[in-house]
């Protein structure tokens, strides 16, 4: 019983983070801000959902696989979003007009 409540709490927090990430993807003004909200919130949300799966199924094939999937997601998503941001900047996508400062452009000229 206690277990089930923990599973529901973890999964609902995860789903809430996922939804907020998707809303951020729609609302925020430029690529870099969208990367901030979308990938990070969705990563944490998905990891919480997978953690819920781990708690629900315990020490079995499913739990271990969910844990491995969570570790893979946590490991790969920052690398992916870093590569996307760098690619976007080198490709010349401008920052949002309300941005304060762009040290990268000042220093590298790209």
């Amino acid at each position, binding site marked *: 019983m206690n277990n089930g409540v923990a*599973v529901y709490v973890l*999964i*609902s927090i*995860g*789903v809430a983070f*996922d*939804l907020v*990430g*998707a*809303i951020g*993807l*729609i609302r925020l003004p430029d*690529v870099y801000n*969208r*990367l901030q909200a*979308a*990938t990070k919130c*969705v*990563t944490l*949300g*998905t990891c919480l*959902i*997978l953690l*819920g*799966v781990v708690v*629900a*199924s315990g020490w*079995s*094939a*499913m739990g271990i*696989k*969910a844990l*491995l*999937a969570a570790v*893979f*997601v946590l490991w*790969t*998503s920052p*690398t*992916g*979003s870093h*590569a*996307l941001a*760098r*690619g*976007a900047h*080198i*490709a*010349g*996508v401008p920052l949002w007009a309300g941005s304060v400062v762009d040290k990268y452009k000042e220093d590298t000229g790209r």
Partner: protein
Amino acid sequence: MHTFLLLLIIGTFLCLYRVAMGPTPPDRAVGIDTIGVMVVGICGIFGIMTGQDFYLNVAIAWALLAFLGTLALAKYLEGRGFDE
């Protein structure tokens, strides 16, 4: 559980909106990346609902392939000028 699944699918469609309407190619790439991570979560919830563990195999494979796809897209963006 069905409610969670429905909410996640709504979120995926929000991402799909960004993929379809995104003004620049990187926007679409971000949307695709986000959809990839969300599908992993959907696979996890499917796994709980059905109690079968092969959905988690799908999740692991999907996470790795989405990562490779994102890296390929980023490399493609780097190599090419972007003028609008």
